[in-house]
């Protein structure tokens, strides 16, 4: 081993030290190497400094397989619980890499922050609706939202928030990326990381039967509901993008007909999101109590609930557009969207960008020669 250390030794947090302890046991055992990328990545190391712990923790999909299969799981005195140890560190990495730095504390009170954001978003739009005189219980010609909130007003509210979200997440992941010193990303590595992320490869259990939820049985439920959620989110996002193009490029203002592209995308996306988040919420309630970090449940559930509310209120809005409930439904929907956007960089959504970064590092790293050649 190289004696003269070039990497400064950063003291480990308690959560990082636990991952270090657990992975030292795993590295001497290695029975779980087939489940996911964490174990093959681990075998390239003999020790686990802070940056490696952060990287490996974000490579973990919290699938639970290595807990149910662990011969050293509690009540064994070694008390190995990889998914839980990893989840705690992930929580710390989200907070520790948050941008601006000071806002990292928002993670600690995530449930509260979410509710406040939701309440203020709602209040904002209700007050605006009242101020624009019509109030929030009235019929609107042709279901035209812009009669309630003019397009310009919506853009002036959402565009800065959206820009901030993108900036905050980009800065956070950049900070994380630098910390884990990943090396050069080649085309094939990027392609593989993207595929793994889009397919949620590591929720297949390594044998295609899925991961663990309530017990040692394998199930594809989480992978599927996550797909519904993620692709539903993308479809809704695409709907917004197409609508924006229509508006600015072609000068076709909303509302659009049910068979228009933005509507089709939005409806499919909304339904998919509702199915996905309902499924994920249900799985989260039934999850084996020792998987993951119980302290992060408010964050997980808050995010799932907010996504569900955003999608379902969007669908409701569609249904009530010709009734007097339109302005109210619009306020609820916009309030939820606003809350969702405001909290994206400081909630469960962050796992997406950190995980993709970790997957990319793994895709890069596995293409490099392994310097630890222990043989068998």
């Amino acid at each position, binding site marked *: *081993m190289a004696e003269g250390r070039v990497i400064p030794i950063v003291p480990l947090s308690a959560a990082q030290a636990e991952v270090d302890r657990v992975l030292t046991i795993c590295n001497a055992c290695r*029975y779980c*190497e087939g489940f996911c990328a964490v174990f093959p990545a681990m075998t390239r190391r003999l020790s686990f400094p802070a940056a490696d712990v952060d990287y490996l923790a974000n490579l973990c999909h919290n699938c639970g397989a290595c807990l*149910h*299969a662990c*011969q050293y799981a509690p009540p064994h005195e070694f008390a190995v619980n990889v998914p839980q140890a990893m989840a705690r560190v992930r929580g710390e990495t989200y907070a520790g890499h948050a941008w601006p730095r000071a806002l990292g504390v928002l993670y600690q009170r995530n449930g509260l922050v979410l509710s406040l954001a939701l309440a203020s978003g709602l209040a904002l739009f209700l007050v605006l609706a009242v101020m624009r005189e019509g109030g929030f219980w009235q019929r609107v010609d042709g279901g035209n939202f812009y009669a309630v909130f003019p397009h310009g007003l919506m853009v002036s509210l959402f565009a800065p928030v959206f820009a901030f979200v993108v900036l905050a997440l980009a800065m956070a992941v950049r900070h994380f990326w630098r910390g884990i010193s990943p090396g050069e990303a080649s085309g094939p590595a990027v392609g593989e990381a993207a595929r793994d992320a889009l397919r949620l490869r590591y929720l297949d259990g*390594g044998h295609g039967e899925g991961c663990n939820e309530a017990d040692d049985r394998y199930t594809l439920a989480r992978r599927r509901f996550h797909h519904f959620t993620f692709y539903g989110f993308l479809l809704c996002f695409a709907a917004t993008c197409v609508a924006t193009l229509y508006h600015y490029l072609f000068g076709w203002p909303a509302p659009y007909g049910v068979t228009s592209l933005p509507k089709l995308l939005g409806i499919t996306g909304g339904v998919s999101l509702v199915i996905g988040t309902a499924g994920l919420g249900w799985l989260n309630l039934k999850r084996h109590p020792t998987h993951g970090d119980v302290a992060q449940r408010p964050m997980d559930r808050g995010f799932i609930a907010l996504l569900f509310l955003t999608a379902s209120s969007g669908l409701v809005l569609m249904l009530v557009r010709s009734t007097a409930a339109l302005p109210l439904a619009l306020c609820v929907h916009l309030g939820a969207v606003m809350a969702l956007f405001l909290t994206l960089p400081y909630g469960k959504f962050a796992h997406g960008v950190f995980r993709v970064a970790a997957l990319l590092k793994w895709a890069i790293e596995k293409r490099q020669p392994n310097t630890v050649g*222990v043989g068998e």
Partner: protein
Amino acid sequence: MVDVLVVGGGNAALCAALMAREAGASVLMLEAAPREWRGGNSPHVRNLRCMHDAPQDVLVEAYPEEEFWQDLLKVTGGKTDEHLARLAIRASSSCRDWMRSHGVRFQPSLSGALHTARTNAFFMGGGKALVNAYYRSAERLGVTVRYETPIDRLELQDGRFVAACAGERRFAAKACVLAAGGFESNREWLREAWGQNARGEWPADNFLIRGSRFNRGVLLKHLIDCGADAIGDPTQAHMVAIDARAPLYDGGICTRIDCVSLGVVVNREAKRFYDEGEDFWPKRYAIWGRLVAQQPGQIAWSIIDAKAVGRFMPPVFPGVRADSLPELARQLGLDEATFMRTLEAYNAACRAGTFDHTVLDDCHTEGLTPAKTHWALPLDTPPFHGYALKPGVTFTYLGLKTNEHAAVHFDGTPSGNLFVAGEMMAGNVLGQGYTAGVGMSIGTAFGRIAGTSAARAALRERVHG
């Protein structure tokens, strides 16, 4: 009354229960351990040795029957029943599909160890995942499982099984399979078997048990007392040298020390006692437990220098580390002068050729006793590391004599409805020695045979009785 009673809850018991149930018998399984400790030694296993004539799913090349048999013959020094051994070997070639049908999953050997990917199929997630899969399957098929039910005696009548008892509880059945493991966690029995040595020590008192604390051999002893035929020697067991700081029970795989062949091993008197470079470590793995058991205090230290780091499986506990050999001796509590004499003699005797820890290389010692025949590099590059070793018992070989139907024998006569599988009879095949993965080959083959035999016996009785 239930048709088949299965005593035990590990691999052999599960194989028997599943086969009996598939044959149409009603099955009750009695496991001594609580649910969270279920499965005995089986949650600690990693792979299964499999014969195959051509590449097959996770197995590369071929490992034909004859080669498997020769390997077994070599490690056992002939202490094996060829008929039963060949039965197990052949069964190992066809059991994987059946295992898969009950949810067991195999994985390609990712560590790229070609020689093990040829002979052994690795379980995805290891033995605990296998045990979980079998329990799920058993539950689905309607096998009843009772945990925390340690059977302490059987009711027998003229060599036939009548009932099993756990304290006040009595379980009658038409047939029974015994698969309650060896006696490795019965400290008194180990002590008695190993006795007192010339130094006045009781060596077994210093043994660690790598597996389950529930394999106490209560039934084995009871059956031998009842006149069942036994086979094997109570001091024979799979014993490896493991980290002396390992827990007393269930230390499992991670407490192994893999650097023995890369350095030297000294005993409490700071002297070497065996050729550390005799052969590849996986082949020699299972002899070091007994070697250490014969040393004073049943302890030894594996010493390496910086050159070895990264070339062996990372140890679970950090070694004692020092910047010079005398300092290492002091930290390990070994006599510094003797230690230095041993190390200096070794270093001076090294005839370094081309070091390669993946082949039997030409680095050896000259004029040294005991010699180190391969991988002999001088220990000269600080920091130095020392790992204390103790004997770790994997499982014992003394068991019940059996035949190709897995029947328990009384005075040479096979019982009509009492069968045995797994560690409780592995000694029929493994009189001594060990070759990786063969415990599961024997347990799976005989577990399945015992389950089938028991179902047949029970269903026959159902027709006639």
